[in-house]
């Protein structure tokens, strides 16, 4: 568990101001612990993603910040003010709901104006700000339409505009892209990221899609069964997963359960130099860290093994091989496009790429 270490941001840059502090928050529904002892800071202007499987508690944590649920224990603070005791309508937080939750009886313009109307903003200011928000999401021409006349992607934009027009300190997004088809999703991801850079509002984003989390986030908070598994930047969490769960959840990996004996790690047919005390150990070895060896003799610090090709999946930019190192031990290898392979081959990987992880 490296959540504490990962919470402190890169020491090289000046530490940005902390916007949201989640302090030891727990949530229990009946006899079920949905969240356990969550502590998490979000920096001003950060794009932080709560990533996890369904039932991991990520949406509950978002709802606690929005105010739709009360924590069973712990506190939430925003900009030096206690947040968890305020009703949702008094928090400077706005939400983009999973299925948008646009008001069906109001036009697009009235939907976007809703928050400003409720706060008794002057009609002129409402007009200007709604126009600006609609321009930002490129939906001016639909101002008079009813939400039911819009496509999923368009409703998504209106939901964004409706939240952002209130200038929240923190924008919460609950799986906002999950209802869109793959192409539209990629496009919305890119627009969302650009929008966040442009307006500089802090985003707390919930998703179960690790690729989406990697592509969008400044930092990822990975939740597992209601507890934080790891909090780190996408690059950090990919390169140095703290646990076997993280290594498997974020990207693909080979989990090697073996042992270290006198500076050598062994797992089935694989052997490579490894530091650390002797004993059982788990390593994560990414498929792309393994290469076809060719005839070159392996330099020091690398490991070489021979394995028979079992499956080959071509995906355009690269291909994934499943190879059998003997005794049924399967290892996945990702190489650049190579052409059809068969039979036995030599593979190499650098010992430094076998990352030791906790259970």
């Amino acid at each position, binding site marked *: 568990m490296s959540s504490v270490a990962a919470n402190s941001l890169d020491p090289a840059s000046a530490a940005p101001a902390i916007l949201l502090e989640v302090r030891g928050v727990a949530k229990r529904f009946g006899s079920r612990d949905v969240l356990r002892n969550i502590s998490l800071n979000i920096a001003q202007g950060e794009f932080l993603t709560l990533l996890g499987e369904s039932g991991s508690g990520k949406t509950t944590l978002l709802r606690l910040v*929005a*105010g*739709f649920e009360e924590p069973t224990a712990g506190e939430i603070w925003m900009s030096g003010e206690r947040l968890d005791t305020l*009703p*949702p*309508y*008094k928090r400077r*937080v*706005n*939400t983009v*709901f*999973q*299925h948008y*939750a*646009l*008001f*069906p*009886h109001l036009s697009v313009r009235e939907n976007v104006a*809703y*928050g400003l109307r*409720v*706060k008794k903003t002057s009609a002129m200011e409402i007009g200007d700000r709604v126009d600006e928000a609609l321009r930002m999401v490129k939906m001016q021409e639909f101002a008079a339409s*009813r939400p*039911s006349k819009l496509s999923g992607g368009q409703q998504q934009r209106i939901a964004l505009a*409706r*939240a952002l027009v*209130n200038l929240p300190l923190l924008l919460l997004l609950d799986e906002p892209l999950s209802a869109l088809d793959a192409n539209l999703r990629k496009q919305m991801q890119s627009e969302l990221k650009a929008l966040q850079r442009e307006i500089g509002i802090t985003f707390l984003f919930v998703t179960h899609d690790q690729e989406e989390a990697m592509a969008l986030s400044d930092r990822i908070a990975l939740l597992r069964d209601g507890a934080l598994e790891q909090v780190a930047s996408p690059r950090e969490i990919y390169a140095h997963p703290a646990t076997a769960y993280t290594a498997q959840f974020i990207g693909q990996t080979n989990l090697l359960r073996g042992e270290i004996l006198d500076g050598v790690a062994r797992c089935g047919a694989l052997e490579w130099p490894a530091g650390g005390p002797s004993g059982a150990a788990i390593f994560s070895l990414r498929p792309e860290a393994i290469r076809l060896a060719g005839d070159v003799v392996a330099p020091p610090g690398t490991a070489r093994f021979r394995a028979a090709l079992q499956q080959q999946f071509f995906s355009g930019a690269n291909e994934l091989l499943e190879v059998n190192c003997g005794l049924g031990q399967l290892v996945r290898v990702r190489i650049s496009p190579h052409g059809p392979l068969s039979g036995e081959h030599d593979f190499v990987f650098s010992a430094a790429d076998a990352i030791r992880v906790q259970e």
Partner: protein
Amino acid sequence: MYSRGYKTLVSLPPLLWVGLFLLLPYALMLAHSFWAVREGILVQQWNLDNYAGLFSKPVYLGVLLRTMRIAASVTLCSLLLGYPLAYYLSFHAGARKELLYQLVIVPLWVSYLVRGYAWKTILGSEGVLNGFLQYLHLTHEPVAFLLYSPFAVVLMLTHIYTPFVFLPIYAALEHIPRPLVEASQDLGAGSAQTFLRVILPLSIPGLLAGATFAFVLSLGDFLAPLLVGGASGTMIANIVESLFGAAYDWPLGAAISVCILIITISLLFLSERLEKRWSYK
């Protein structure tokens, strides 16, 4: 696909039913309203005298207006009782929702007559309410207007039709997606604003349906005025009943029925138009 023969076979019973028990009686009623009674005998002599009489004799018009006033009062009272009840059950009752729902429905299983007689027992001069008022020394003699008055009719009809108003409103409220309520709060609206800006507008179709039920059913009611209405609480259906019975003037009774039917159909038509205008599917 179903064969032609099968389709004919299954559509015959409902067509017969509608034809025999709905269209034919209505046609007969319409025909009667243009006939006349001469020297105590019904004659098929086409004329408009029944309609002319209806609008020239103030007694019928007066009762018709009173009936509409009573129906409007019942509608208003049922809405004032039914809407808050439906709102509470749908949004705030939590685990007690099912039980409370059953409690609202249960009175519908009790005979209309039994409930009518219950009100007689409560409101009468020797009744429970008068007894209680005198026990508290708030009054020294029975309060007369409690029973045999338009007030009693409105009270009894409200009691009977509130569940009919409650049900469509409750259904409409249950169909409001809860994320809409959360979205409203999220955008800064408290409970009152959320109710006025989101919940109420989205429940209007149910409200209209409930109001239509209460009004139309009250308009045609004749048991409540018979049981608790007295002379001052007579309604138009009682007039029709007596015209078809003791007074033996079927043509005039039919003419009044046609008028009530036209009012009812116009109301149903109007409320359906309004419900469409307020639904967003």
